[in-house]
């Protein structure tokens, strides 16, 4: 799915080229509209390009199919090497979604924070626990919320008649059965969030090996 998309870059909405879109609007009602448009744009963009993580500048840190064995950086490199087709798209990868060089505008930090806050409130984003650098804020973008993903997983398992089968996380992400599914190549952390939803609902059980590490999951 994502390979097709790379040939046809994301089409930004017209409002992205409207200079005041990058200034926080003083009028409350206008601001509400503006905020909503930004959130829609971020979710659409991330869904289209399968972006899993954005940093506080709106630069995608992880996107496309994430191989668990690869570090997040390499998956980002993979993507940036294939680009330079469309300026806007390449700019987002370099400078973040909140900067539009074409009209030389960038959104101020305060509003960016409010956007992320709103995304978190609505369940469409969550903080990434960053052990190495606690100051750098990064966010998982849930264009499908973990509970959406859990529903998708559950439906898929039922449709394939795999209820009760034990899967490793890797098999869920990259198994032959998952090919063509929306969650194929999902970011492992987000998969974990989705599985946790299932665990809470009593629909999944985590299986641990001798060392107490999660080895697989049984969904039914």
């Amino acid at each position, binding site marked *: 799915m994502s390979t097709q998309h790379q040939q046809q870059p994301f089409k930004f909405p*017209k409002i992205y*080229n*409207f*200079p005041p879109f990058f200034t926080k*609007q003083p*009028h409350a009602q*206008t601001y509400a509209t503006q905020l909503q448009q930004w959130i829609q744009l971020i979710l659409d963009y991330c869904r289209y390009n399968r972006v899993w993580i954005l940093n506080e500048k709106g630069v995608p840190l992880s996107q496309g199919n994430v191989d668990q064995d690869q570090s997040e950086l390499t998956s980002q490199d993979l993507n940036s090497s294939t680009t330079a087709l469309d300026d806007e798209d390449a700019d987002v990868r370099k400078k973040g979604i909140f900067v539009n060089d074409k009209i*030389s505008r*960038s959104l101020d930090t305060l509003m960016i924070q409010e956007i992320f806050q709103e995304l978190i409130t609505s369940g469409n984003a969550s903080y990434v626990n960053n052990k190495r650098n606690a100051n750098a804020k990064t966010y998982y973008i849930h264009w499908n919320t973990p509970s959406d993903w859990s529903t998708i997983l559950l439906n898929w398992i039922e449709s394939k008649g795999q209820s009760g089968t034990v899967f490793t996380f890797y098999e869920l992400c990259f198994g032959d059965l998952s090919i063509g599914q929306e969650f194929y190549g999902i970011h492992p952390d987000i998969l974990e969030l989705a599985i946790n939803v299932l665990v809470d609902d009593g629909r999944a059980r985590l299986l641990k090996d001798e060392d107490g590490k999660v080895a697989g999951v049984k969904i039914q």
Partner: protein
Amino acid sequence: MYEVKVNVYGGWAANMISLIPSKNHKITKINFQRPLIMNGIGLSAFDENHLQQFSQLGKTLQDRKTEELETQFTLFKSLLFNYIDTYRSQIESNGSLQSKIMQICQFLNIEPLQILNRDTDHDQFYYELSCKIIEFNNEEGNIKYGGLIPTLELLSELNSKLEGRNIITLDDLKTTIDIMTPLNSEIAIVKLNKQQYIKTFKLSLSTDNMQILQIANEIGCVSVSMIRDNLNWSVIKTKEVLKELVNSGYLWLDNGETNGESLYWDPGWINNLF
């Protein structure tokens, strides 16, 4: 007499299609031919190529089905319109029949505006139209047009859904706006730069406001110095009027210019840029 050659391993799916329309031909003999090159034995025969042929066949059948249904649907719709036009007076006098027909229309996603007659159902027609205007304003008005809806765009939007039945004209809009005035005294048709707009916001458009809106409307954005130089207004007055316009949602503020002066944009220009 026809002889049909079926290539078992190659494009047999394609041959299936050619079989379907020829049901009035008599097939006497089916000649199974082995292909010269075998694709593989067992499961490997089902390589991508074959799967693609299956999905192609599926798509063709599906497309044909959709097309048939669409034709049927259009036919049914035009017959329904005919029926309504012919028996209009009976339908109107019979309440249960009328509600049945409304149900059918709702089910088929037919705009009530398409079936109402503006001469006999005068009130209902304009009532329906006013609902459409409010809907349009709520969905698009604020973000795209900043509360000033260009009548031309509204008309083309409304008419695009009506498929040529009961074309709405500017006069219809005027009648509707008159009906709506008791609900919201702010609603009115105003004229800027020869274009007519429907104004829904709570703002008395004074001459000052109008002058600025006209400039913004023509070139996209205005700034304090631009207004001061062109209209010979004092800076304080200019700032005050611009602030008022921003605070009522007619203009969007832009602080991103490198020379530091704020620009005030007409949101109608979102669609004109690039």
